[in-house]
């Protein structure tokens, strides 16, 4: 459905997207997980041909978007990172307007609008101006506006930023719902939990590069059955490296002046390990333990946490 090859884009020397390649199968929810500034929005902008790539190609349904993006727009739905709505108009008027741009009209449009209003739980306040809506309501409407024309490919750019857990649950449910009905989805987020809950396959990206890609199980293998221990305090780097060599299975993921991350096999007791650290002369100010999940994958790959 969506195939991307060697996509590249830089802004005044800053490489925002760096030779990215991936493909999303029909009906799949593909996650794009990465921290702020990773290049998610830039990638999406190029897919909907708002931004011209410096290099690489994008195919939607095997058609290169360089040739006739206008025709492809009917197949494409976008939920922008910022809410993109007319505040002076009501929810219903917004949806009617956006729908009409895709050639929808009359009863079909009305039915679809009513359906989405119900799905988003906005039907009771559908006639009210969007200006008076809460942040969460706007987000839901923003999402509905992107799927008004039942697109074949839906690009969601961090659609749940800054909303309460209940509204988020509702929105994730909506995404699953459209996916079940056959829409292919590219879902970008910096929330590890969302990616875990929602995505069939995903790519973790940072600084414009895909670090790892695959199903969740495949990605999990990067850290294996390892917990991650992040230690901050005072220690000598030599000792830290030596320790990693002495204990079987222990890996040194990252090492900075006052902070390091170890990958520790699950079978190795953490208490026992901390004792070893103290014995080796570590002065520990802070210590955190991460169970194996996507966050730990990111930590392992970059030495940083997703939410840094």
């Amino acid at each position, binding site marked *: 459905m969506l195939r991307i090859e060697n996509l590249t884009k830089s802004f005044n020397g800053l490489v925002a997207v760096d030779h990215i390649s991936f493909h999303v199968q029909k009906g799949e929810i593909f996650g794009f997980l990465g921290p702020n500034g990773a290049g998610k929005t830039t990638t999406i*902008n190029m897919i*909907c041909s*708002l*931004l*011209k790539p410096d290099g690489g190609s994008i195919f939607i349904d095997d058609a290169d978007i360089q040739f006739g993006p*206008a025709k492809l*727009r*009917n197949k*494409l739905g*976008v939920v*922008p990172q*910022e*809410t*993109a*709505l*007319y*505040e*002076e*108009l009501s929810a219903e*008027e917004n949806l009617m*307007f*956006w729908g*009409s*741009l*895709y*050639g929808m009209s009359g009863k079909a449009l009305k039915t679809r609008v009513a359906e989405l209003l119900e799905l988003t739980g906005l039907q009771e306040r559908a006639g009210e*101006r969007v200006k008076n809506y809460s942040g969460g309501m706007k987000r839901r409407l923003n999402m509905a*506006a*992107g799927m008004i024309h039942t697109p074949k490919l839906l690009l969601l750019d961090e659609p749940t930023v800054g909303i309460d857990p209940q509204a988020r649950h509702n929105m994730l449910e909506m995404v699953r719902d459209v996916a079940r009905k056959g829409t292919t989805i590219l879902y970008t987020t910096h929330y590890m939990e969302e990616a875990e809950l929602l995505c069939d396959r995903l790519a973790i990206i940072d600084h414009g590069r895909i670090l790892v890609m695959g199903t969740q199980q495949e990605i999990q293998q990067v850290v294996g059955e390892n917990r991650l221990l992040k230690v901050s305090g005072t220690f000598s780097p030599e000792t830290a490296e030596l320790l990693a060599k002495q204990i079987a299975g222990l890996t040194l993921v990252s090492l900075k002046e006052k902070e390091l991350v170890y990958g520790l096999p699950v079978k190795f007791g953490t208490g026992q390990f901390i004792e070893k650290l103290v014995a080796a002369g570590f002065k520990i100010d802070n210590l955190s333990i991460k169970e194996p999940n996507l966050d730990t994958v990111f930590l392992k790959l970059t030495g940083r946490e997703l939410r840094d």
Partner: protein
Amino acid sequence: MIWKLLKKDIVRRLRNPGGFILLVLLPLLISLLLGLVFGGGRDNRVMPEVKLLIEDHDHGLASQFIAGAFHRGELARLFDVKSVDEGVGRRMMDKGEASALLIIPKGFADSLVSEKPTELILVKNPSESFLPKIAEETIGILSEGGDRLVRIVENPLRMIRKSAQNDSIVSDEKVAAISILFKNLIEKTKNLFFPPLIRFNQVAQKEGKKQTSGSVLFAYLLAGNTLMALLFVLEIFARDFFRERDNQTLYRMLTSPVTSRQYLAAKLIFLFVAALLAYLLVWLAGLLFFGIRITQPISFLVLSLLIVSALTGVIALLYAVVKTRTQAASLAPAIIIVLSMLGGAMIPFGSLPGFMKKIAFISPVYWGTDGLHRIVISHESLAAMPLHVGVLFSLGLLLNILAFILFAKKVQL
């Protein structure tokens, strides 16, 4: 598609009509205020100076009253009055040295007292469009006032004259009678509809033109003020270019089948339509409430379309050139004021310093204001001003196309 976009913008604008209404009222209020200044204001610079010659053939009290009126107070600011000897006035008019010549005929005062109809003669310079008109109006008001004055005072005068003739002590009856007369007098002052005693006759210098009554001064002011307000209306509406970008609706629009050209066309049409609406509302109010008469409706409408499209082009181009909302916000007022100033919309064109007059032709406001003056005040038709039509049409076309092209580049990211 363009219609869908346009409809959406119209609905949005209707939800917040406040600014729009204010901007329609603004030129009316400003013109009204300035018009009132005519009767007693401070800043005479808002008014053009009318060069008026007075040729007094009567040398009576009434003619001194009229001539004197122009030398006093507010009228003195508006008029540059020169008393000339008999025959001199005509010669000066022939040379185009004045806007109008007022001739007070021999026996003017006597006719007044004996209630015989009499005439004031105003000769107007046809090469000037509205200044003679102002002279005409003022003299009309003066003669009406003089007329009323004569009628009001005549009865008490007669009564007092009679008392004096009888040479007797005023009796109680007479006191009663006089008080009744004064009561009538007060009532009469309320009555505004006397048949005029002084007929006021105007003669155009060379060819006679059909004259209409109506507030010439108001029309004069309204023309400039409307165009200036129009620029402000357009500027406010043009902010939507940034609003759509900032609130990301432009982003969403461009991911839909809408092309950037359709989007821009809809926006430009919206600017044009909204400005035209504001413009027509202003003039409608002028017609209904301020006695402006438009005798050349087709010329007026065509000129109006040309004006609105040229001014739309000015603002659209401004917004196409600037990068940010702040840039637009700081540049726009300066540009609007310079263009309005040059165009004679703020200070009468005749009072502008010479260098400004020389470069005024660069401002579409100049062509618009002058064209409007000629149609609304001098009742010329558009056929008489091909240059105005040509300039405004070309500006409208050029500026809008240029704005469109520059915008298209910008919108495509």
